[in-house]
Each structure stands twice: as C-alpha cells, then as structure tokens.
C-alpha cells in the first residue's frame, strides 16, 4: 500500500461526504415540486413531455396504482429493447468494423434485455464485436436512463409512504420519472460526457479505424458514441460497458482523473438520496444515522480490498514475482489490472461498483486475490444496501431499518415504531419478504447452475482449472444478477463469440435464461414489496415521542443496523461463501 493510494481513497471519502448532502437537498426540492435552478431551463420540456405522454402530473396514485405504472412502463421498455436488439441486421450504422452485425440469438437477447431493464447490465455479449451503434444508443443508452429512473422513483415513493401522515398517495409515477430524468440524470450525464471526452473518451459515429502500426502490423480500433453512454452508465449505477472490458478500456476510462470522476458519479445519487430522505421526512439526524451505517461498511470494504490486492496473489508468488512496492512500480496484484489505475484505484473501483448496483469494472474481478475477490461477494451478500443502486439502495436499507426497529422493539419489549408510525404484523411480513427474495433467488439460481451439467457448461475451466474458482464464478454470476449488479467473474460464459464479428455466435441457453429470469424476479418482486410497505405506512397516524420510544438516530441504532445487515447477509450466505471465496482467501494452494 502507498501513501498516494490512501490519499486518493481518503479524498474520495471526503468528497463523498461533502457532496451527498448537496445532491440530496437538491433532489428533495425536485421531488417536492419546488423551484430549482434548472426550472427555467427544464420547465418547458417537462410540460412538453407530459403532454406528449398524455399524463396528468398532478394525479395522485396509491401504492397499487403506482406499482401498476412501474410494471407497465417496464414492460413497454422490455419489448422495445428486445425488438431493437433483434433487428440489428436492418439498422443504420452497421458494418462499421468490416463485419455486418446480425442480431444475437433470442437467448442472449433475452438476457441482455432483461438485464438492462433491471439496471443489471450483465454482459454476455461484447459491445464492440456484436452491437451496432444504433443498438447501443437507441436501445441500451435509453434503458440506462429509464432503469435508473425507475429505481429512484420507487425509493421516493417509499419515502413519501413513510412521511405521509394523512394521505395514501405516493405521488405520480410519470411525473417522478420525467422529473428524475430532466432535472437529475440528463443534466449531470450531459456535462459528465463532455468531461470524459475532454480527457480522451471517444464520441463519434465513425467507422472502426484501421491503423498500420509502427511495425506494420495492422490494428483495427473500435470507435463509437462511447462517452454519452459511459456518463449515464456510471451516474445511473447501470454498469454495462460500451466495450467488452467495460471501464478498463482506455476509451471508456482514459486516466486516473476519469477513474476518480466516474466513481464519484456512481455514488453521487445513492449517497445523496439518503439526505433527500432526511429532508423529506423532516429529520436530518435519521439521514446521518443511515449514511453513517453505510459509510462504515463501505470504508471497511475498501480497506480490505486494497490491502489484499497490494499483497499479491499465491499464483504470483509461486511464479517467483516480488509483489511489494518498488521504485517506479506499484507492486501488488497487477494481474488483470491497468497500469494507469494500479492497485489502489482498482480496489476502490471494485468496491464502489459492487456496493452499488453499478457493476462496472476497471479490472478483472476474476483475477483479484482470494481476499480481494471476497470483498465484492460480501458487498453483494449485504444485498447492496451500502449506498446501493440509485434508489434501490435506499429502499433496501429502509426495509432493513424497519427490521432493525422491529428487532430493537422486541429487545426492549415495546411495540416497535419508526418515526412515530407503529410497525405491525403486516408491515413486518412485507419487509421480511422484500428482504429475503433477493438472497433466496441468488442461492436458488446458484444451486441450479452448480448442480446441473447445463449450468456447469458456463464455467471457464481453461482458466479456473479444477479449483474453487469454478464455483466462485457460478455463485458470483447469480449473486450479481440477483442484486442487479452486473459485474462478473468474467470467465463465466453465456455467449461464445469468435473475435471477428458475431457470425456463428451462440449462447449457452441455460445461463442466458436463468440469469435473465434471476435479474427480473429479484428486481420487480422487491420493488412490489417496497411499494406495498409504502402503502401500508402511508396515512398511518403518528404517535408522539415518549420516554420509552427507541431512538433511531443515534450511534446505538447505527450499530444495531449494521449488525442486522451483517447478520442477515452472513446467515444467508455463509455456507455458500465458504465453498468459494473464503476457501480462495484462506489457501495458498494452487489448483491444477
């Protein structure tokens, strides 16, 4: 580990703590209909959107109506994206790399469509070898906006449910979507795209470039509208790369500054929403308590990942490499990492994108050390409540908060209350179901993928050999898709493609379908439960604070909350974690 590495990590944390209340306060204004500095610019387009959609933005919706809108909007998006991806052969901007891209087969397309709809952005395809610019822009970029917006508005609806004392209303879905995109996502994405281009990210609609090379070895360089997608991919915690290697590609992430900037984009909204919540329920202290719980777990994860990667891997040591820092070299585990990021920025990137549902990578997760690779497992096992995805992180941790209040209430022997609202049998049932669905889906899919020959076909034995890495690949694939993360131990294959174009490509149908279904189920079921909890809490009477009321805004509660999150995650996942990442973290043995 180096002083400079820690300097970057600490500055990142400081900026995170400084920016979160600002974005949070801004978003609170947006969602309570107040005037913000963008109102003069966006007011007209906003009304224009409502008119073209045929929406009355002032129509209040209860939880069932809100949920229906979420489902219908997502269904329309799913169908449109599927059609776009399946009609590649008739699209413009095709045959730009010397090969005309046909549509991927139905099974891969099912996976890609489902995963972009759910903010997962799992990549069983390689962008530059299979997708046209049309598919990337008109298909994928649009869902980068839409899926992020859906996550955010569900969180906002849950906040309104907690805050509303007299009405059953959770707001208007389409108004929330339009305001999210116009006032939050689009302006930040637009400016960020230009920032990225200024550093070397590309943005064009050119043919792939043929370079003749210094040595006369021809090199084809893939082009495309990269920066516009990169910006929203990070901001919306989507994570699906324009290129196969995602943010490790120099055109997506050209230097140390863009790396740092992209990571701030990832956490900007999830961390900010915590303070939006504080504003909207009228208690900044609640927000600080939730933020503190998230931050403690985040910082712990960064520390472990950085230390593990700086130490190096058993394979490196067996090969005779020295992995400590020497003059002019970072040392550490540089397998699957880029020189411009080194070990510290790769570890930080890994943690930021796996605590959130982003899942972008700037290094190969599969090549992380055993312990370094166990960190993303741990992050995902906590169901992405450590900041989490845009919106999803907040609504998930709020379910945990209610659970912690319930457990705390049992301990002190009082009817549990949260912000004055009684937590009763109906609420706690919905919360428990909402929290358990994602872990159970992940475990069920992993079991299927491990126990069946069709599932094991996806394991990349050419690089895993016979060791625990094969199980880690499988487990990570479904843990990641169930949490709508999308990062991968990328040896796990659903789509075999030759390097020249996608002619003759085929999918591993089992992995494609199971992954897609996992992502869909583990996205929409928790959304419905979160909205149902919102519906149950909305309009509940608030009882006055008494002497025996358990406080939810002090350090004791932060510890309780962290304890509940770790307890649920550990109890659910410990046996599975033991078989893969923990074995890999503990052993120095090399598997053949």
């Amino acid at each position, binding site marked *: 580990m180096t002083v400079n590495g820690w300097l970057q990590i600490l500055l990142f944390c400081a900026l995170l703590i400084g920016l979160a209340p600002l974005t949070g306060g801004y978003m609170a204004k947006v969602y309570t209909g107040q005037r913000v500095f963008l109102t003069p610019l966006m007011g007209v387009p906003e009304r224009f959107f409502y008119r073209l959609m045929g929406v009355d933005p002032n129509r209040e919706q209860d939880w069932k109506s809100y949920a229906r809108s979420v489902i219908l909007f997502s269904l329309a998006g799913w169908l449109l994206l599927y059609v776009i991806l399946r009609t590649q052969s008739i699209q413009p901007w095709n045959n730009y790399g010397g090969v005309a891209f046909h549509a991927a087969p139905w099974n891969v397309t099912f996976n890609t469509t489902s995963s972009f709809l759910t903010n997962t952005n799992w990549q069983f395809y390689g962008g530059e070898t299979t997708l046209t610019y049309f598919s990337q822009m008109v298909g994928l970029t649009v869902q980068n906006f839409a899926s992020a917006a859906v996550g955010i508005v569900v969180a906002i609806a849950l906040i309104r449910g907690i805050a509303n004392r007299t009405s059953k209303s959770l707001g208007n879905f389409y108004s929330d979507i339009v305001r999210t995109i116009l006032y939050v996502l689009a302006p930040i994405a637009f400016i960020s795209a230009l920032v990225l281009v200024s550093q070397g990210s*590309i943005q064009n609609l050119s043919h792939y470039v043929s370079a003749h090379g210094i040595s006369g070895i021809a090199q084809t360089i893939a082009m495309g509208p990269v*920066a516009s997608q990169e910006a929203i991919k990070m901001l919306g915690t989507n994570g699906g790369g324009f290129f196969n290697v995602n943010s490790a590609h120099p055109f997506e992430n050209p*230097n140390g500054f863009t790396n740092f900037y992209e990571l701030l984009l990832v956490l900007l909204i999830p961390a900010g929403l915590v303070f939006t919540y504080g504003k909207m329920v009228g208690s900044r202290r609640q927000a600080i308590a939730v933020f503190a719980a998230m931050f403690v777990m985040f910082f712990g994860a960064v520390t472990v990942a950085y230390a593990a990667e700086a130490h190096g891997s058993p394979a490196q040591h067996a090969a005779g490499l020295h992995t400590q820092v020497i003059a002019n070299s970072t040392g550490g585990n540089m*397998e699957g990492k880029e020189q411009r990021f080194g070990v510290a920025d790769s570890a930080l990137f890994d943690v930021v994108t796996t605590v959130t549902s982003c899942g972008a990578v700037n290094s190969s997760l599969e090549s992380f050390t055993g312990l370094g690779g166990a960190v993303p497992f741990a992050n995902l096992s906590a169901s992405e409540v450590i900041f989490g995805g845009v919106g999803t992180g907040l609504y998930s941790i709020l379910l945990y908060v209610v659970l912690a209040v319930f457990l705390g209430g049992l301990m002190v022997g009082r009817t549990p209350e949260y912000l004055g609202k009684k937590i009763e049998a109906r609420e706690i049932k919905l919360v428990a179901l909402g929290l358990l669905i994602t872990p159970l889906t992940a475990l069920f899919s992993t079991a299927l993928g491990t126990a069946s020959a069709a599932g094991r076909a996806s394991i990349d034995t050419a690089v895993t050999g016979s060791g625990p890495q094969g199980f880690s690949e499988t487990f990570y694939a479904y843990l990641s898709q169930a949490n709508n993360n999308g990062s991968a131990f990328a040896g796990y294959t659903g789509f075999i493609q030759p390097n020249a174009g996608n002619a003759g490509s085929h999918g591993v149908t089992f992995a494609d379908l199971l992954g897609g279904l996992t992502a869909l189920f583990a996205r929409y079921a928790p959304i419905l439960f979160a909205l149902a909890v919102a519906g149950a809490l909305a309009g509940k009477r608030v009882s006055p604070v008494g002497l025996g009321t358990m406080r939810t805004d002090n350090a004791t509660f932060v510890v309780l909350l962290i304890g509940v999150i770790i307890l649920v995650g550990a109890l659910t996942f410990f046996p599975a974690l033991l078989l893969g990442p923990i074995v890999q973290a503990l052993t120095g043995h090399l598997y053949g």
Partner: protein
Amino acid sequence: MRREVLISIRAMVLLTIVFGLGYPFLVTGVSQAVFPGKADGSLIDRDGAVVGSALIGQQFYEPVIGKNGKPETSKGVAVTQPDPRYFQTRPSGTVPADNAAGSSFANYGPNSVITKDAIQSNIATYLALNTAPDKHPYDPAVTHAAQVPVDAADTSASGIDPDISVANAKIQAYRIAAVRHLPLATVDALIARHTTARSLGFLGEPGVDVLELNLALDGSK
C-alpha cells in the same frame, strides 16, 4: 387500463427518441466541435497515415526469419516475435494480442496453476528479450523473476493497455540503448518525456505511453 398501456408506450417511444438519438447526437456534436482529436480516439499520424492511438496499446513485433533467410510462417500466418528495437507493452489477453476491436480479460484466477504458468511464461519472455545474444542481461540488475516488475509479468485488464510502469521502461531502456547504439541517458530522457504523470499530481499511477515513446525513438535516430 388501456389508457395506461398507451401512456407507457408513448413514454418509452418519447424517451427513446430524446435520449437514444437526441442526447448522443448532442454530445457528439459538442464533442466534435470542442475536442475533435480526443473525440475521434487520440489517433496519431505518421507519414500521412494513422499509425495507432495514443490510448491503445499495439504490438511492436517483427517477423521471425528462418534458417533459409525467409520469414517463417505457421499455417500461412507469419510468425512474429517482440522486436528488441522497440519498447514492449504489457502481456495481453486478447486474441490476437492487443486486439483493439475485440477487447477481453484474460480472467486468470489467483489460486490457479494455469495462472502461475502464464506468469512464469511472461517472465521468461521478458528476461529472454532483455538478455543480449552473449547471454548477459542488458540491465545487469535484472537477472531473475524477482526483479521483473509486476506489470511486465501480469496480463493487463483490457488487453490493450497503452502504458507500462516507469520501472519496466527503465529496464527495457538498457536493451534499447544497446540495440540502437544510443547513450542510455538519451533513452532515459525520452522515457521521462513520455511518462504520463498522475492526473492532478495524485490520481492514478504514472505510466509510460509505449506508442508515443517508440515513435519518439524512431524520430531520434
């Protein structure tokens, strides 16, 4: 219900037009106007033709000449080897190496014999390249695995990493100086000139852009 279905379709179509076409076109237009070279991939021209991108690693290889004096081929494809006159990039996991139209990870795991073998092979290649025909290492301080910088032995993430560490470049400098009959100080000065510092002085890691450095080498003789 029918009304709601219509709204959802209209909303998706509208978002698709505005954010699938409008937004990327707007970014493209502004980028092309304000940062034309960067938006097009930081391409480098030499003698009027594109030689590569400053941000993309490429192969600096030469054909292997057989005993009969002709280039060797294997299955009709010319056999190549690292060209000792040029700085070499990091090991690549793409097929073929440094494939900028099909990036991919190597995915070597931490506890695998396969990984160990791959790293050992990279080390052997590196040491062999930096050893003179008279069996003496060009850099007297680099004789075995423990002295090879990690970035020279470990596969990069993208497979097209444009940079190497300064330590790696300084070792290769001995070879370059010997093969090109240049003073070592001249080569070291070129390395210093083509080292990308950390952004803003502290973000990321310093690296030497191999293509730019090799172009400068060709220009200096």
